[in-house]
């Protein structure tokens, strides 16, 4: 166990100190949709845990790549620890419903740089594939075909404040006479980065969001 802890510390420290020019400053909020994409040729890896009322939790991994600075491809996959009996919902809007695999394209089709801030709009679309885990609650034993997701988000980002609003729509094909319900997700995010929190490496840089 002690060896594992040491290994984790070494890996995280090595990752922090070996990183190139790419940094995580443009990462969006954990719950809501946001406009940032990866830089051209830039990869990012996200690993997250989410849960609902302590009854359901899953691990989500997402790998993203910037084809251009305005076009990002992202694939995500889940490990569901506990099936979810609640209404179908996307806890983290960046990755679709827990339990689904996804392959999404994020296209930042509008970017206007102004003094000290930028206005951006990003469209997202792609395919969803239900994972192997059986659902719980009202959707137990429900079959599902492949699905798709479309959506868009727009907003303003400055050095101190962020505002984004977006929505996605998910629809699934029939399978063996069953069909999952459609899902509409709307998100609104306000972010604030106080002056005292605006620090550069080697200090942490913090911001707080209301999602």
């Amino acid at each position: 166990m002690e060896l594992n802890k040491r290994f984790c510390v070494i890996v995280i420290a090595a990752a922090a100190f070996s990183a190139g020019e790419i940094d995580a400053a443009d990462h969006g909020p954990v719950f809501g949709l946001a406009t940032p994409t990866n830089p051209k040729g830039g990869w990012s890896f996200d690993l997250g845990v989410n849960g609902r009322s302590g009854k359901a939790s899953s691990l989500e991994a997402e790998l993203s790549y910037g084809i251009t600075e305005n076009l990002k491809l992202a694939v995500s996959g889940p490990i569901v620890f506990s099936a979810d009996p609640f209404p179908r919902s996307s806890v983290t809007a960046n990755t679709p419903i827990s339990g689904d695999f996804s392959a999404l394209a994020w296209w930042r089709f509008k970017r206007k740089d102004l003094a000290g801030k930028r206005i951006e709009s990003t469209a997202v679309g792609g395919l969803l594939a239900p994972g192997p885990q059986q659902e719980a609650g009202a959707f137990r034993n429900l079959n599902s075909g492949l699905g798709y997701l479309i959506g868009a988000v727009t907003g303003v980002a400055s050095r101190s404040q962020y505002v984004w609003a977006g929505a996605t729509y998910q629809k699934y094909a029939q399978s063996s006479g069953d069909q999952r319900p459609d899902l509409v997700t709307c998100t609104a995010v306000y972010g604030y980065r106080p002056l005292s929190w605006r620090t550069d490496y080697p200090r942490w840089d913090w911001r707080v969001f209301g999602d």
Partner: protein
Amino acid sequence: MELPGSSASQIFLGPSLLGVYRAIGIEAGIQFPLYRDTGPLYPKEHYRFAINFAYFF
């Protein structure tokens, strides 16, 4: 045929925090329901949380 009582609408609100250290981003947040119209088929969801680790390379 639609499953009766399966439609649901919810609104959640809550804070989250993002910390950036060069290529690493760490996020955590919790949300609570502001509005809930979920019908009889579902248990009530009292909160939801998310924790995320991001690495850019």
